[in-house]
């Protein structure tokens, strides 16, 4: 029970010393409330990604071999596959609709592509 927040904290600390940079693509000319929504979805998606996805799909980690690290087209294919709840992906099968959308939006919006696997 207590281990989880510690791992998360370690993640956050290890990212602290990096320079603060714009992490995602802002929609051009979007009104502030839309911007807020983007930021919120991105932030939530990133948190879920780090907690549940990064171990295998390396963006913040080295990931595992033979696991995709998501180019744009992969995200697209992935979204279709996952909407179908089709594969044996245990985490995504369980995720709520909201959580799934956060993660996908995070992957779609992130810019520049963060540390990409190897």
């Amino acid at each position: 029970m207590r281990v989880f927040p510690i791992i998360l904290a370690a993640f956050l600390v290890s990212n602290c010393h990096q320079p603060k940079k714009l992490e995602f693509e802002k929609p051009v000319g979007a009104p502030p409330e839309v911007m807020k929504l983007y930021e919120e979805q991105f932030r939530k998606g990133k948190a879920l990604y780090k907690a549940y996805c990064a171990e295998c799909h390396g963006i913040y980690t080295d990931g595992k071999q033979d696991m995709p690290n998501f180019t744009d087209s992969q995200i697209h294919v992935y979204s279709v596959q996952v909407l179908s709840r089709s594969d044996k992906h245990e985490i995504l099968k369980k995720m709520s609709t909201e959580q799934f959308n956060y993660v996908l939006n995070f992957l779609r919006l992130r810019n520049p592509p963060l540390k990409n696997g190897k």
Partner: protein
Amino acid sequence: MNARHILVTILLCGSVLGTAFLEPERYEDFYGHSIDELDGSLSTLLQKIHGSDLSRQASRDGIRAGIASSRLKMKAADFWMRYFDPVQYLRVNGQLPVEWETEVFEKFEKPYRRDGAGLSLAYQYLETDSPAKDSLLRLVQGGLDAVRSYRADSNLSQLSNHDHFFLGNRLFLLNLATIYTTGFECPNDAAVIPELKHMMRSMEEVYLRFTASNPSMPVLPEYMTLFGAAARFVAGKPDALSAFDHFTFIRDFVNPLFALNRRMMTMYGIRSARFVDFTLVDSTNSIFSKALYQGQHTKGIFSLVDDPATLSRIHALGRRLFYDPILSGNGKRSCASCHVQSMYFTDTTVSTARQFDSTMRLSRSAPSLLNVPFHHLIMQDGKHLTLQEQGKAVTRNPIEMNGGEGVVERVMSCPDYRSVLQDLARLTPEEDGVTLDHIASSISYYYGGFSNYASPFDDAMNRTGEVGMEVKRGFNLFMGKARCGTCHFAPQFSGVKPPYVSSEFEVLGVPADTFYKSLSPDSGRFLVHPVAEMMNAFRTPTLRNIERTPPYMHNGRFPTLGSVLAFYDAGGGVGHGLHVRNQTLEADSLHLSSGEIGDLTAFLRALTEKIPFEAPPTDLPRSRHAALNGRKVGGEY
């Protein structure tokens, strides 16, 4: 001499001689051949219409006969067409001139408009007063264009993967239990059972061809035997839809075939990889199981939590919050105010509940919370995509609970809630702290559990119980003469039809008053999706527990099941003389006798689930704010 005998003879010859020249047609070629036959039949029909004079009865009769024979070819290819591309299928055999609801991605796409086409619409159009030739041609041509798309690579590539066969067969069996026997897709009632007979014969051939071409994954002999018996059962029935024994057909044949198909899926390691059936649970053995498909994640923000101890904490939290008026702006209203557990999670004492200010009434009746997890779109107008979203919205709604900005703060002022919620919030990395999402999700997890129970009708279908003759007669009426089954699809008996990815919305012409002075002013689905076809449309609700959840309709207008059945029997709003421009319910009388009404009611009663209701909690957590400590369990609504 029928096709099956010929085929069996050919198969025997092929295996005995083992020579190439007598080999049966490959399964893939058989598919192509079936599409070609439908293509040819529709092309002939088009030529016939071109050369016809629609003002002459003989011409119209000729076209009608052409439509009937094309429909048989269509039924023979239905198994593939419907599974491969449900959107194109609606142009081959659409039922509405304009289709709005999305067939497959309801949760993820905005509804988009599709003009219907195909044989059902052509048949209906031909029945109108003065059909125009070009319009009739357009409807048939639309169907033909769609049929030709089934030769595209996208469909042929599905054909080359064996999985499609067992997954498509699952859909076929579900449709056999819900659609093929009701006239939902056949405007001519007299043709429903003859078409079904033809379809059963065609499917036997499909099975034989598949097995011959794929000896490593044969259709099991038990399946073939049972399916043969099912085909004989259908063949032995008269052609009249009203005489068909739906109950026996589904209980003794369709549902056991569904279980055998599941067994084959397991044996051959087949899992759905398609968006068209993404909600179906691959491991389910019965159509009448609550595990057939998933509509909602009742765990909401806790969806990724599996640990039983944590889940039971969430459940206990949700139970207390469900009864706690601390969620409302005046500390008097809780979820349980309008969703009373002993009243099957609705309020059977009022048409519609009071608004927050207690003077005005809400415009819609509080729905039962039972079985809401089996809807994809929540609320009667389908406004919300998830229960999580709905829970937050009702808490904030100024005329419902009016929880205001301080809901989370008020809940967190109770140390008991605070410690649990803080622990739980650590499990949701996407949120920085405790949010309304945690509160709404624990509540939906709590009440969602009450939707897992079966009714006597389910038990009868699963052969773990029996129902009386009046229930069986009632179900047969439901699926046949009374035409209920064309909108309320098993197993939920709601508008969610196979493959259970979207809901239907219907316009019934529900009156504002029981004297039928005017139509209910509620625009329904139009409020969410403002197009003409959706004016006054409402999501078709489940009929489970219907006996216990009066009053009925979105506005609670009808107090008894008898009054609702009378409304339908007379053809809805239009049948009662109201002007409803877009009513989707047929306006003519069903001519139900009082005995038939009695049987229908008996069937509906058999849908009442055996739910172990429980008493409310005896007390609520204390708050640090003394002013909040006078609140009563369940509120004082």
